[in-house]
């Protein structure tokens, strides 16, 4: 099912949570709504579900205007941030709930067949008689997903699906959710504040800031060409150097960068810690190493340029230099934004 949001607006009391958001989600796509807290991403998800109603704009499911359809008739599967499993029902009963209250009557045998099928799908066979309090967080998450899928939703919506889990469980579940999505081909929209999760899982990432979409694109597009300083910073660590642009060129010490399309005047040059090479001599921006931090797969180097900017970059584990070493930094793939 294709979903379309047309200039959707939502205001809570005096706080405008969502400012005219328009978005197309293709049928079968897996889309991440990514943004910091307060960016309006959960509000958008809840409006798609029908748990909130927009003050302006419209939401379409296929060609149908779904804006005023009640949540219980909208046909969405929703996985809540803390799962919202019914604590007094077993895993089985939780999954069967949607089928039991559905208008399309199913026989008890049909329901238990489908529950068994879903338990296999989410790999929870054998846990059907446990209560939610008796299983782990990752298992609860999967029960919540099975419960949402049980009603054959047209759209699957997940609110911070991995927020409450350990890092390892999180990564496994991400891969697993992607696999389930590829198997079922259901249009899926999920909310996260974790950029690694969004990039890892989604076909397309929608980045939000203060209730507005700031960039939409595949993970590759948003990573390679962040549309703004906000996106650059939000997607990962970034170094910032102040520069002055004149004639589409920016100068730092004796290094010149081509900056096509940026108007003359003050600007900011950004680059990722991985896009730096340290040289003992030769060409580059002069700097002194301040500190070296060790990580499992690399060394993070903190350095100070001779004109007083502090920068951080990643070097191979074999990087031999210590604090107070002088040298040159060579920057690859810089991105310049007007200040």
């Amino acid at each position, binding site marked *: 099912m294709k979903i379309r949001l047309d200039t959707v607006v939502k205001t809570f009391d005096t706080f405008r949570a969502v400012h005219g958001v328009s978005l197309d989600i293709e049928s079968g796509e897996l889309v991440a709504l990514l943004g910091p807290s307060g960016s309006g991403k959960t509000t958008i998800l809840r409006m798609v*579900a*029908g*748990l909130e109603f927009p003050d302006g704009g419209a939401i379409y499911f296929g060609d149908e205007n779904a804006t005023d359809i*009640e*949540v*219980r*008739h909208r046909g*969405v*599967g*929703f996985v*809540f*941030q*803390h799962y*919202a*499993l*019914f*604590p*007094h*029902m077993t895993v089985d009963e939780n999954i069967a*709930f*949607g089928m039991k*209250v*559905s*208008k399309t009557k199913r026989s008890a045998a049909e329901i238990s067949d489908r529950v068994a099928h879903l338990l296999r799908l989410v790999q929870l066979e054998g846990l059907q008689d*446990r*209560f*939610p*309090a*008796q299983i782990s967080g990752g298992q609860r998450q999967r029960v919540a997903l099975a*419960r*949402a899928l*049980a*009603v054959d939703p047209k759209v699957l919506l997940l609110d911070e699906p991995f927020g409450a889990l350990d890092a390892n469980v999180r990564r496994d579940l991400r891969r697993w959710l992607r696999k389930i999505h590829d198997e079922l081909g259901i249009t899926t929209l999920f909310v996260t504040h974790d950029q690694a999760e969004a990039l890892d899982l989604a076909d397309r990432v929608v980045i939000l800031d203060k209730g507005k979409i700031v960039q939409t694109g595949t993970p590759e597009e948003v990573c390679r060409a962040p549309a703004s300083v906000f996106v650059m910073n939000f997607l990962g660590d970034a170094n910032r150097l102040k520069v002055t642009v004149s004639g589409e060129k920016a100068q730092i010490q004796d290094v010149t960068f081509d900056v096509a399309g940026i108007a003359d005047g003050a600007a900011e040059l950004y680059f990722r810690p991985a896009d730096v090479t340290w040289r003992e001599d030769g060409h580059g921006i002069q700097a002194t190493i301040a500190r070296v931090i060790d990580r499992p797969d690399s060394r993070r180097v903190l350095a100070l340029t001779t004109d007083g900017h502090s920068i951080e970059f990643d070097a191979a584990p074999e990087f031999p230099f210590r604090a107070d070493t002088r040298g040159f930094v060579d920057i690859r793939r810089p991105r310049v934004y007007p200040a």
Partner: protein
Amino acid sequence: MARRILPGLPLTLGITLVYVAIIVVLPLGALIFKAASLGPEDYWRIVSSERAIASYRITILCALAATLFNLVFGLALAWVIVRYRFPGRRFIDALVDLPFALPTAVAGIALTTLFASNGWFGAPLAAIGIKVAYTPLGIIIAMAFTSLPFIVRTVQPVLEELDPALEEAGQTLGASDLEIFLRVILPQLAPALLAGLSLSFARSLGEFGAIIFIAGNEPFETEITALLAFIRLEEYDYPASAAIASVMLLAAFTMLAVTNLLQTRALRYTVKG
């Protein structure tokens, strides 16, 4: 013996045991001792006399009716206080405790005045043929009045803690409001409701002050068991009074035990395993 982090166990445990022994066990023991001073035949004759049996029937039926009434209205009251924000909410919340604070005799006199056949409520009710004061209906009203806070105050905190996401989950799965209430909300309130019900019922069984003013106290018609025990006391027939009281004690104890069992069952999903 394992070392304890919290100090003061011997002291607090000692105080608790002494307190329970003196304030609770001793009087109850004295009651049973007094009742036991009767021979089995005398005991049976007293507790199974027609007048006593009529009083049990009146007391228990009225207490059941009052408790069911409170179940519905106490739940509705707790729901409104927790779920809605309206002017006067805090005032109503405070008002709920009033039956606890008011001397029950005062409540009884006030209710009698209201429901007497010339009272504010009694006159219009009498006009349509409903007599409240000096009938079992009056007993029910007095019992309901004094035991209402039990239901509200046991259900209220549980209702406040219910996660709204559970109701939203029910909605996204297509359940109607009624289905959500019956299948999601009510089962989670059940243990608290049970506790409230048993307290309310126990209180109604034992209520005395509020009832004797409104009941009319006609033997076989509107005479409650507590009053019968009191009448025997006034006649200086202490063993008979104790015998009747021991029946009430047994009833209350059995009911609390059953409620506890039911509650354990209703809460079995919270057991980690």
